Structures are given as structure tokens and as C-alpha cells.
């Protein structure tokens, strides 16, 4: 019988303190807290949470093991469907997936599925000797090239290696992890512990990772297949190209894409004094956009010392970011200017940003996405003072691989054409994650990587 207690609160760093450091915000459950929270699960006969999970993790089953204190058992159940629980537990939009469909959420608070998943992911890392090593099939001698070491690539490579394939991941940057390393900040996803551990786990399966290789420039897919003997290729190159608004003043000094701002800080570690890459958050930063990347950029600017605003053209209800990130951003003192859209960025005589001119918006009729589309209120323009403007408007897939590989078709939006299994329009070439769908989530990319892995035979 389920325990009718309130959701066990998760410990977090104090907002006043964490606004000045890059340490992880959420401290996670300890064993007692996790076990107690797990007792809240109703263990539904027809678990809606499982259906709402993009990779179908057997949620009530693993939570039952947590409630019994059998953490290794819980880890084994999650591992059947997910290879990155410590990561997904931290970055999945649970409120629209598993937790959003939890029966308990109708009248109260849903089970903290994400926090429990994270707990098991972290527990497995800290108790590596108690978790059975994954079974690796004998080598079949067949070579697969995985392009990109983000969530899709890591998941695909891991599954293939377990089945005996000889897998090499080619990564364009100098560090493996893709968006987990360059995009998501340290305070949400610690690099040296969580991400590095997942990458090491993939390497432990025998996967080779070659960094500093830009497929499409350093080598082409054709060369990989013809000259280096790779029988299959999986393209998991993500959606890395930043979008800009196309408004006047976007090339002024002090205007950055969120990608640039976050890459400087996360991949290049600009926030550390002993690293040479510069970064500038200014005194007053304005971040344009309402997704997770906008929240990450704003909270990074805040931590670098800027008084930070988020400007979004719809209302708070439509913010695409995870609820938790919005909540955390507010707690930390970020100001949300909703129904506000930039029309021009203004500079001083030296070409540095001095302000951003915006127009008030109101919500009109629903658009094709079902969301009410914002329309400008005539004559409502006003200026927000700023010396840094960060554009977080979404990203698009990099066209490099499609351009340099004969027979790979792309969609109108630049994603690679691929079927359910990840098969592209070119034989023996698979693709998955943001490179196919455009910017989406870590869990969807991971799922796509695993589906492609199972289709490769």
C-alpha cells in the first residue's frame, strides 16, 4: 500500500549562495530520502508514466526496488531501457513526461521520478563494484563509426559495443560529450563526475573515441567506409547551428549566441581563472528566448556577475523550458520580461551594446503548434538597458555532413531524412537525435541512438 505522505523535498543549494558559484544546484536524495519517496508510488497496474517515457523505462518496477533498498536491482531495471540515468534524471523534462502523467499528480504532487532516477544513476556511479558489469558479446570484428559523442552517439555506441561491434566515435570538439559538455552548464550537470563517468563507461565497453575529427572536413563518410573499413555509420551530430533574429544591431559587440556564451563557459571553462578563454557577461545581460538554453545562458550570466533579464514573446505558461529551471532561475533573482519581443539592438558610438529596444506583445489566435501566437501591440516600444545580449532562439542541424555525403537527403528544415529505425536514404548510414529531429531532448536523442543500434545488423 502506497504511503500517503507529501513528496519528499530534494535538498538544493541556497539560491543566494548558488547565484555566485557554478556548483550543482540540486544536491539530490540520500538513501533514506529516496527510499521514503519511493514508498509514495502507487505501483499502478496500468502505469501511465511508462507510456510517457520516451524510452519506456519500467518506472514502477525500479521505484519498487528503491523502496526496498535494493538500489543495484533498481539500476539493473533502468539499464534495460536507458544508458544515461544520472544525466536524464537531471535534464529530462519530467513534468511533461513521466511525472506529468503520474496519477498522484492529479490531486497532489507526482512521485519524484526524475530525482529517483538521478539517485540510482549517482548511486551506481558511487557503488560501481556492486553493479554487475554489462555483458559484452565476443567481438564480431565488424566496424561501426559513430559521428558525434553526444547523447545519441554515446547510447548507440554503447549498445553496439555490447553486441560485439568494433565501435569508434568521432568527435569534432576536443572533449567527448557533445551538448552534455558544451551546452548544459556545470550547475545543472557536473562534467567531471557525471558526464565524464558516462563517457568512461562507454569506453570501458571497448568503444574508441577519437576527438578533433570533423567528419565532412577532416574525413568524409565515404572515406570512413571505403578507406578505413567501417561497415556502418551512425550520424549523431546534433543541432549545433545558432539562430539569430535578423534584427538591426545583432552584430554589435556584446551580442552573442547562447551557443557561443555557453561554449565559452562550459567547454572552454571560461569561468575558471586558470583557463585562458575570455567571456563577458557585462553588468546587465538580456537573454532572448524561453527554452532551457535561455535559462542556462541567463543563469550563467548571473553567476558571472550580471544583473540578468529574460525576454520572451509569449507568457510564462508557454515557456518551453523545464519548470524546475524557470523556478530555479527566479529563485536566483533573474527577472522575467514576458510578452516582450526585441525589435532592435542599440549600440554606443564604439559599437558596443547599450540597450535593446523591445515591443510589448499580446496573445492572439493559436498557431499551428497549438500555442496562441504573440502579436505586437502597436506603439508599445520601449528600451531595456543592457551591455550584453544573448540570443537563445534555438538551433539547427549542421549541414556539413549532408553536403559532403552523396545520397544523404535532408528535410526542409535541414534535418537528415531517417525512418523509425534511424535508417537514412543511404544504405548502411543511420542517423538519430537532433541531427534528424532538430533541437529536442537528451532522452529522445538517446532513444534514437539505441533504436539505430538495434537496427544495425
Amino acid at each position, binding site marked *: 500500500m502506497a504511503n500517503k505522505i507529501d513528496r519528499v523535498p530534494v535538498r538544493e543549494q541556497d539560491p543566494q549562495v548558488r547565484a555566485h558559484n557554478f556548483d550543482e544546484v540540486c544536491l539530490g536524495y540520500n538513501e533514506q530520502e529516496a527510499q521514503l519517496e519511493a514508498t509514495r508510488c502507487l505501483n499502478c497496474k496500468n502505469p501511465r508514466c511508462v507510456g510517457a517515457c520516451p524510452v519506456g523505462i519500467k518506472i514502477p518496477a525500479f521505484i519498487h526496488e528503491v523502496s526496498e533498498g535494493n538500489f543495484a536491482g533498481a539500476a539493473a531495471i533502468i539499464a534495460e531501457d536507458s544508458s544515461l540515468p544520472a544525466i536524464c534524471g537531471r535534464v529530462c523534462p519530467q513534468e511533461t513526461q513521466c511525472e506529468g502523467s503520474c496519477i498522484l499528480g492529479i490531486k497532489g504532487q507526482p512521485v519524484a521520478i526524475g530525482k529517483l532516477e538521478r539517485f540510482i544513476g549517482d548511486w551506481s556511479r558511487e557503488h560501481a563494484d556492486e553493479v554487475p558489469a554489462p555483458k559484452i558479446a565476443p567481438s564480431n570484428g565488424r566496424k561501426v563509426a559513430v559521428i558525434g559523442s553526444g547523447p545519441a552517439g554515446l547510447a548507440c555506441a554503447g549498445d553496439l559495443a555490447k553486441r560485439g561491434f568494433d565501435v569508434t566515435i568521432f568527435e569534432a570538439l*576536443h572533449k567527448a560529450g557533445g551538448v552534455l559538455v558544451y551546452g548544459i552548464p556545470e550547475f545543472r550537470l557536473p562534467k567531471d563526475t557525471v558526464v565524464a563517468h558516462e563517457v568512461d563507461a562507454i569506453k570501458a565497453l571497448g568503444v574508441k573515441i577519437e576527438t*578533433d575529427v570533423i567528419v565532412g572536413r577532416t574525413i568524409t563518410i565515404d572515406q570512413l567506409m571505403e578507406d578505413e573499413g567501417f561497415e556502418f555509420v551512425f550520424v549523431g551530430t546534433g543541432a549545433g547551428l545558432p539562430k539569430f533574429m535578423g534584427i538591426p544591431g545583432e552584430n554589435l*559587440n556584446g551580442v552573442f549566441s547562447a*551557443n*557561443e556564451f555557453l561554449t565559452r563557459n562550459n567547454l572552454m571553462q571560461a569561468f575558471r581563472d586558470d583557463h585562458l578563454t*575570455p567571456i563577458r557577461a557585462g553588468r546587465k545581460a538580456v537573454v532572448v528566448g524561453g527554452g532551457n538554453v535561455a535559462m542556462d545562458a541567463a543563469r550563467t550570466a548571473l553567476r558571472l556577475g550580471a544583473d540578468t533579464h529574460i525576454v520572451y514573446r509569449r507568457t510564462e505558461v508557454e515557456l518551453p523550458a523545464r519548470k524546475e529551471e524557470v523556478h530555479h532561475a527566479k529563485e536566483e533573482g533573474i527577472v522575467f520580461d514576458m510578452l516582450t519581443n526585441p525589435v532592435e539592438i542599440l549600440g554606443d558610438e564604439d559599437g558596443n551594446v547599450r540597450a535593446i529596444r523591445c515591443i510589448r506583445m499580446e496573445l492572439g489566435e493559436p498557431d499551428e503548434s497549438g500555442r496562441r501566437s504573440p502579436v505586437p501591440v502597436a506603439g508599445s516600444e520601449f528600451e531595456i538597458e543592457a551591455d550584453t545580449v544573448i540570443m537563445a532562439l534555438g538551433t539547427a542541424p549542421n549541414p*556539413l555532413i549532408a553536403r559532403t555525403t552523396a545520397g544523404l537527403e535532408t528535410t526542409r528544415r535541414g534535418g537528415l531524412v531517417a525512418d523509425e529505425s534511424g535508417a537514412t536514404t543511404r544504405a548502411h548510414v543511420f542517423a538519430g537525435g537532433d541531427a534528424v529531429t532538430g533541437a529536442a531532448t537528451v532522452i529522445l536523442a538517446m532513444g534514437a541512438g539505441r533504436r539505430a543500434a538495434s537496427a544495425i545488423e
Partner: protein
Amino acid sequence: MFEIIEKVMLNPTICKMVVKAPRVAKSAKPGQFLIVRTDEAGERIPLTISDYDPKAGTVTIVIQPIGASTLSMVEDFNAGDSFADVVGPLGNPSEFVTMPEEELKKQKVVFIAGGLGTAPVYPQAKWLHERGVAVDVIIGARTKDLLIYEDEFKSVCDNLYMCTDDGSYGFKGVGTARLEALVAEGKTYTKAVAIGPMIMMKFSTLTCVKLGIPIIVSMNTLMVDGTGMCGACRLSVGGVTKFACVDGPEFDGALVDFNEAMRRSAQYKPEEAAAKEQRMCRAEAKARAEGRI
């Protein structure tokens, strides 16, 4: 790790390094660049490829220290040491590489090279010269001591013109003045390529537009990843925003907004000056500790 095979000071400030990077060497084409990261704490430093040898698996880069990172490359790294990362080739090859042979044969190209930009002109001139295309090269520097690559160029072009601002060697005056003099003498060119500091490429463009010679420039903008991800390298070309890393680095000079590009390049000047200062202080402290000063 990418081993430094050879290191030569070409003059008191400019350093040439030959680095083992087999994958880059195999794919490099004239006009492309690469990115070096010296060590774990280093920046990603974009540098134009000055030569490449697919057989030896090496690439050549030429560095003039201006900030803390380039100073570190030249002062802290020697032959036998290794850089943490060398990635490339990046950007598009020069337009000659993809030009139909028939059109290529008709070209009469003049390169205008300024300072450090002399080195990346070399693989382009060599590539064209090997294919029988008429190539003249104008190399300019402030003074004789700063001229580089004179001997190397002798075998890869039809005419080599050396210029110094102070007249200490060759023609007295800037490269564009030499070009104007050549055209006045009756020389004709189908295409000019200018590589050097942005201000020099700006003035080369003004001269070439005046002379009616189409001009290509190689834009060495700020950059982080070099693969299209960050957008730090964006510049206006014909009123449209382009990324130097994926759309360039070479553009039609007549369409480039040089003033904006120069302003954007100075974006991190205060941070760069502070980093350089810090490096100098550390070097001084170390020298004192070791009793050298």
C-alpha cells in the same frame, strides 16, 4: 597529442612550426585553416594553414604572438613537445581549388601578402604555380627584418615583389602602392587575393576596386569552435550575416564590411590585455624565483 616536429623563428617575432597531424595534412587544401589548443587550459586558436605534407602527415603553421595564448605557443612549446589538439582542416578551400581547369588556366593572379599573412599565401601560390597559372606575389612588411618567406616564394611564382614601408628592402611603400605601380606599368590581373591584417585587406580592397580587379580576402575573425556552432566569427558580406568558419574564410573583399569586422575583432581586447599582463607577471615572478633577474 600532436607533436611539434620543427620550430623555426622566421624573424624576431614570427615563428613557424611543423606539427604532426596526419588527418589534417591528408585533407588540407589551400585557403583552409585549423585550430590549435595548446593544453587543457588553453584557448582554441584559429590559424591559417601555411603548408601541408600528406606523406609526412604534417601541417605548417606560422604564429605571431599577440595575446597570452599565442605567446604561450611560441614561448612554451618547442620541437618535441606536443599540442593537446590540432583540428582541421576548417573552412572552405580557396575558390581556385574548385574552379574548372579551363577557367583556371585563364587566370592571372596577384597575391598581396601582409606580415603574418605571407605564410598562408604560400600554399595557394604553390598550388596555382604547379598548375601553370600565372602568379605574381607582392609581400609587404613594415621593415626588412619583418619580411618572411622570400626564398620559399621564389620557386612558386612568376614574379615576386618585396616591399617595406620604410624602404629598408625592395620597393618603398605598402603592397597596394606596389600593385598600383605594376598596373601603371601595364600589368593586368584577373584576380587579386589579399591576406594579412584586416586593415591591410581593407585598403587592398579599396585599391583593387579602384583598379577594377576582383579581390578575395581571407577573414581571420574571432572564433571558438570553428565548425559553425558559436557564431563568434559572424561578419557582414554584401549586407548579409555570414560565418567566417563555414561560409569562408575567403570572401569577395568588395562585399565585406571591414569596419564592422575590425570592431568585432577587438571585442575581447580588455580581457586579452589582462591575460597577457598576467602571463608577463607570472613569467617575471618565475624569473625572479629562479634568480634570472
